[in-house]
């Protein structure tokens, strides 16, 4: 194979025509095979070892793609686009990679038989649009305006998302629990831990929800602690700060607390200009030392007298300062029974005023009670070397809250944290979409049948083939679910199809039994935008890759990667 490019740049590498497609397809299918085993609640885990030997256990597609350091150009392109899926919707990364891989795998056969890729891509586009319409008009379940109040659906969505990210779901005690939520008032098999975390996630979203404003997930602080087990994770109506008071005599537990959120320097500030004192006796020096402190003492005294004026009996005071507080000032506050936290994080300052009310205090002039927040309880807890401050029982109109995640080790907490972030996104999506899709592969089965029954006959000419490819590719999701759960792929798919045909209802796959189920009654809900995005993204990717006829790498030879044997 000679190419004109090589005459221009002798170092360039070229892969063209059929071979280019094969390279692309292989990369896409290869990536698909890597991620395949992680899909769904019964997927397995991958252990990632970083450059410094740090461990990460994960089954989250996004995390995997991010950490895998993919270099193959095609694979990297798919991986990057799939992570875009996550940026937009927070979920569905694995599905997108799977769908892309399957689309290419099926399309390659037709191209090999001489079909022009352009015709195929037309078919894919047509099928995609039909599929999206089907999703919108026929399949999605609308939830109405007051979706935020609909706790059962929200919890179910969170649960569906969490189940696919947490391996704990399978191994943690699975109990028959009574689920007391409206239409779900029936006995269900569910993992307690997932249920508990899902509950916390929904509580968090409901706390930060304000009508007519976009949900700002930054208002939810996620804090991890390495102790006890993941079961002890919980929702905190308030804020948990990862530091404590820096004075041994400060109170550890306060009740009925006025919270002063401030950004005021309470330590000695160096002058901007070169300055010094000149003295000639020790008395003079003492005086200078005193005068130096005077300014700070004055400020502290102001705060102390403010505290005295606002605090009634049984009320206490807590200062949370973004700037520093020096030991002498801390001492003054400790004597007054004030808990003072210094060097709080900026983002926590915003969350604090949202959670406790009040406003950040930037100057000590005109202190007003209205600027103070309120919390029912503030307590400082130390676990080993680490100190945490819990600002709890905030007023009911709190706009910010904390998800406290615990786990026996860093691996678990990191995993739970990633999962919770996705859970939050899933609930957010539901609230914004005001609709959900039955999960467990239900949509893919239904769309597959719809395309074959309705769209294929209506399509004329060779474009038909593209639609067929798309329809068959969709089945990769239920197929993989079945394979991961340890059931026969063909048999499970046939069962699902028959059931769908017979009942006309949304039929998903039960990953525990391998049997068809009704996602609606099991509470398995996916997000509309995740599905839609996944369909669009994978089609775009597949189309682009199909239309590639040359892969070139110009310029310097990068050195050949040596596959190391293990």
């Amino acid at each position, binding site marked *: 194979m000679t190419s004109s490019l090589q005459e221009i740049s002798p170092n360039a590498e070229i892969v063209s025509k059929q071979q280019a497609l094969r390279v692309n397809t292989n990369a896409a299918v290869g990536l698909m095979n890597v991620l395949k085993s992680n899909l769904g609640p019964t997927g397995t885990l991958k252990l990632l070892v970083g450059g410094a030997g740090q461990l990460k256990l994960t089954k989250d597609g996004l995390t995997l793609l991010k950490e895998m350091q993919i270099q193959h150009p095609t694979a990297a392109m798919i991986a990057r686009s799939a992570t875009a899926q996550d940026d937009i919707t927070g979920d569905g990364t694995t599905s997108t990679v799977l769908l892309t891989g399957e689309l290419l795998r099926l399309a390659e056969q037709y191209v090999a038989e001489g079909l022009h890729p352009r015709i195929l891509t037309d078919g894919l586009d047509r099928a995609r649009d039909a599929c999206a319409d089907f999703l919108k008009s026929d399949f999605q379940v609308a939830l109405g305006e007051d979706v935020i109040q609909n706790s059962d659906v929200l919890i179910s969505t969170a649960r569906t998302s969490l189940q696919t990210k947490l391996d704990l779901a399978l191994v943690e005690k*699975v109990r028959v629990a009574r689920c007391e939520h409206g239409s779900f008032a029936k006995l269900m098999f569910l993992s307690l831990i997932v249920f508990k975390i899902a509950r916390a996630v929904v509580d968090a979203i409901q706390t930060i929800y304000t009508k007519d404003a976009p949900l700002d997930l930054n208002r939810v602080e996620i804090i991890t602690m390495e102790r006890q087990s993941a079961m002890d994770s919980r929702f905190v109506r308030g804020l948990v700060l990862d530091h404590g008071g820096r004075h041994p005599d400060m109170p550890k537990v306060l009740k009925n607390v006025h919270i002063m959120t401030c950004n005021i320097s309470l330590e000695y500030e160096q002058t901007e200009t070169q300055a010094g004192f000149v003295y000639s006796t020790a008395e003079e020096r003492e005086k200078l030392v005193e005068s*130096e402190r005077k300014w700070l003492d004055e400020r502290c005294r102001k705060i102390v007298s403010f505290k005295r004026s606002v605090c009634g009996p049984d009320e206490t005071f807590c200062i949370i300062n973004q700037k520093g507080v020096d030991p002498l000032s801390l001492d003054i506050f400790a004597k007054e029974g004030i808990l003072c936290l210094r060097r709080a994080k900026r983002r926590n300052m915003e969350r604090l005023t949202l959670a406790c009310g009040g406003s950040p205090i930037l100057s000590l002039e005109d202190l007003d009670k209205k600027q103070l927040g309120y919390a029912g309880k503030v307590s400082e807890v130390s676990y080993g070397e680490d100190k945490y401050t819990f600002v709890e029982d905030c007023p009911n109109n709190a706009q910010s809250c904390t998800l406290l995640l615990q786990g026996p080790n860093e691996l678990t907490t990191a995993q739970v944290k990633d999962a919770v972030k996705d859970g939050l996104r899933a609930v957010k999506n539901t609230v914004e979409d005001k609709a959900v899709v039955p999960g467990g592969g239900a949509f893919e089965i239904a769309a597959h049948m719809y395309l074959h029954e309705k769209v294929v006959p209506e399509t004329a000419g060779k474009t038909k083939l593209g639609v067929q490819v798309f329809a068959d590719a969709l089945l990769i999701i239920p197929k993989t679910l079945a394979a991961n759960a340890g059931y026969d792929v063909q048999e499970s798919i046939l069962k699902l199809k028959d059931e769908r045909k017979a009942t006309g209802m949304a039929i998903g796959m039960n990953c525990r039994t391998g049997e068809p189920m009704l996602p609606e009654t099991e509470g398995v809900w996916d997000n509309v935008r995740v599905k839609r995005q996944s369909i669009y993204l994978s089609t775009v990717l597949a189309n682009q890759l199909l239309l590639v006829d040359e892969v070139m790498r110009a310029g310097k030879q990068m050195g050949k990667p040596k596959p190391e044997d293990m």
Partner: protein
Amino acid sequence: MTSMAYNSAAGLAGMLKEGTRHFSQEDDPTNSSVVLRNISACLELSRMLSTSLGPQGRCKLVVNHLEKIMVTSDCAAILKEVEVEHPAAKLLASACRKQEEECGDNTNFVLAFAGELLWQTAQLIAKMTWQPAPEILAGYRRALDLCESKFFPTLVCDSVNNFTQKDQLLQLLRPVLASKQYGSEGVLAPLVVEACLRVMKNGRVSVESVRTVKIPGASVSQSVLLDGYAAKSGVETVVTSVEKAKIAVFASGFEASSTEAKGTVLMKTADDLKNYNKSEEAKMEEIVRSIVESGVKIVVTGGNLSDMALHFLDRHQVMCLRIGSKWELRRLCQAVGATALVRLGPPTPDEMGYCDSARVQEMGGKPVTIFTNAESKLATIVLRASTTSVLNDLERAVDDGVQAVAQAAKDGRFVYGGGAVEMALSVALQQEAEKVPGLEQYALAAFGKALEVIPRTLAENAGWDSTRVLADLQSSHASVTEGTICDVGVDIDRLGDDQGSGTTSMKEKAIYDLLNTKMSALRQAVDATVTILKVDQIIMSKPSGGPKM
């Protein structure tokens, strides 16, 4: 034309960055799948440390990367120094560390049991497909659940209910310490019990309230308990011993105060110089006098002590001690009930601490300042031994002992030690397994079988024929009547002859374990095992710098 970068045949390895390693079951589906390889790595670690299990466990000599030598049989301490590199073994090691942090004991149990459970799984896998079926993992969970909720409660033989009872605590501590420092438990246990009883507040023991001071020299039997605090340094002043003294503690230095901004002394004549020094002296004397007048006889400072201050302190017959560490200073405050002051000046009466006596004593050729106070909420155990490595080991043993008491304060239930409880669980589980259908049956049986590793290792380490001992144990535990607890365990005292059977009554020997610690260890081990078994692929980035794995 196709370069390696586009080599379609290279699979995942061809896609990743150079130097990345990737293990999955597809590479070699026959015998060395990832799961099996992980199991063998963990087994390696667990077998290595199993010789250190129990009172008769052998010590390891570990030389760490700083060439520091450590001789110990404490599993957690060894793991800390051995840099485990294999990712799966790392998971196991982190489970041990967690156990050490939460309970301070039974770390080797975690390792030994998890290792054995993995080994049992490997044998199950050999009979099935490459991947441990979800049922097996669920079965392990179920077994753990059964142990926790069904079997353990029936195996509780005693409980500590009255913490003022020294005997009860002693009974509990002896086996804990024996497994770390066999032979010294007779000396250490009373010390630890005494120390814990002193610092007990509302029935709770704070681990931080019992301190150890290690002083090389003499022997273990000369270790003593002090009511109060011991600083490993002498005093600065001439006065070295004070009785019934009030104490002022300064977190700041004891020296002339200085301004934050740069200060310059302005002098024009020689007289100025003289006068300046005089004024400094006068100022310092004033401060010292005011402190002395408030009744303080001992001054402790966390920062610098200027020569001038020292001079005046000496002149006023005040004892002065410098403690550099902030934490140590805080402990001293706790011991004598003082508040650390940040400003130089006389303390108010409630800021002052008090001690019955403070004196400098020589121990092992080093001065030690001892503050004693009958009311103190801090106890210090002075450990003596010939070498630092023994001292360190003793310290670890004491820490574990205090942890055990703290745990007992939360939940004081006992089970029989010496492998008896493991054997009982093992027998019960294997019997239970027969009633369960499906793959879970194998899981329960494997779990039960794996529990035998504890008595077997104990027997092996004590020099018995482990197979015979195990058989004896099994028969005694299997023939136990409903409602009673079999207390037969491994006899670790092999008295120089082969006459003994290797088993004995744990009740007579008074060997107990805390239920809580055992349960936590079991939980950690199962958690680690299940996690390791769930991994189907390992993707390792190229190590960044440093020596290669």
